[in-house]
């Protein structure tokens, strides 16, 4: 499985360079709000990796190798989770820099709510990608990014008001994201297997 994730990172090498460029553009254009987009953008890397796979029909190669359907879908989730986790400190660093430059205040809640949105984005969109293919999925994705992010951030804010205690809030949110992700992986596995095997 590690080999599959590494393969995706190699595939995405060119994309990642472009990604560094985007970080700068977002930061300059949107000031501290741009730091949020970095996390959300990273959450979309698995779709790009999947697009490369689909173009090469890598699934035919992969199913000839000692991998289960779960391995194949899970590797894309891991890529996404790895992405959002790695981008979190980058995002915080940028937000702090923005604060230092007087471009806007820094709230850790902003970053954490983006992280939550990123994980939710993966959980909602990946099953659709696995079922419909990236090309169809991408169109839906743009809609879903807006909906999922709005809902997730609202939820985060709402829960924050209800719970009050920051640590408890993060625990509740993390548990919720984990539960949704587990269900999402299972759904992806089922849908992907069905699509390829037809």
């Amino acid at each position, binding site marked *: 499985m*590690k*080999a*599959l994730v*590494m*393969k995706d990172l*190699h*595939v995405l*090498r*060119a994309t990642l360079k472009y990604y560094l460029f985007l970080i700068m553009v977002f930061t300059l254009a949107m000031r501290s709000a741009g730091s949020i987009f970095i996390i959300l953008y990273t959450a979309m890397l698995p779709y790009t990796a999947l697009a*490369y*796979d689909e*173009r*090469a*029909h*890598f*699934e*035919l*190669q992969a*199913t*000839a*190798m*000692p*991998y*289960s359907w779960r391995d194949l879908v899970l590797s894309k989730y891991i890529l996404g989770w790895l992405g959002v986790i790695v981008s979190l400190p980058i995002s915080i660093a940028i937000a702090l820099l923005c604060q230092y430059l007087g471009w806007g205040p820094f709230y850790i809640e902003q970053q954490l709510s983006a992280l939550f949105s990123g994980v939710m984005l993966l959980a909602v969109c990946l099953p659709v990608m696995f079922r419909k293919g990236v090309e169809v999925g991408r169109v839906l994705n743009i809609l879903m990014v807006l909906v999922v992010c709005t809902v997730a951030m609202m939820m985060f804010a709402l829960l924050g008001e209800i719970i009050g205690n920051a640590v408890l809030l993060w625990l509740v949110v993390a548990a919720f994201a984990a539960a949704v992700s587990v269900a999402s992986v299972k759904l992806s596995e089922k849908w992907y297997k069905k699509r*390829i*095997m*037809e």
Partner: protein
Amino acid sequence: MNALEIRGLTRSFPGFTLGPLDLNLPGGCILGLVGQNGAGKSTTIRLILNSLRRDGGSIRVLGLDNQDAAFTQLKNDIGVVLDTANFPETLTLKHIAALMRGSYTRWDEARFNELVQRFGLPENKKFRDFSRGMQQKLAIACALSHQARLLILDEATAGLDPLVRDEILDLFREFVADEEHSILISSHISSDLEKICDYIACLHQGKLLFTAEKDALLEDLALWQGSAEQLEELADEAIVAVQQQPYGVTALVKRAEMPAGAQLEKPRLDDVFLFVVKQQGKGACGK
């Protein structure tokens, strides 16, 4: 033990039905699956790898049902070359080697490097810049480098020039020098299969026309040429298939049923294949 055992395998698509298919690959042997493009060779191979749903029948690979949960791990023992190599275009040979190393439990790096050198594959070129021949060679190098017991090769030699093709066939012969090793190889180039196979299965429009031991098949059958009147004189049971030519008749006949002294030629596998397929089109079945 049979390396591959297929019983009553069926799968329907809109406009195409495969099977019912019965096929055996005895351990230590090479079975060639010959058929035109679209005959169902790749579908059969995907069904064997269980990356395609089957409608009915059973498939045992190296003794294990391919729908068993343990089949995923058994794929360590199966080297696969697909009709088109399927790696994302931005990967290089190094990346692909890393993927294989991390995926197969018995990856043999030294063997892989040896094959890469032998094939003259470039190390830092992106996969999309590989020629079709190079892609095939890379896929073959991968399949031969993880100590598989069974090779499943879908049109593995199709994109290669004749010289390289011969070299690759030698590699496959070397592979089966170990009697625990077996190969299923599909091709629409029957001359390759004729060179290498122990058994031949002929697939046409999703159906098996015949399976036979290759040498016995080519020795039992013969090509006969003559006039239409001479053909009339031949015993019915001697004739497998007939083709009208502008100045006479060519027939595929059974050597043993022919009168002594008849002028017979040894057929190529290609001849047998074409005769039987064309006869099939006429509604009668040969052998």
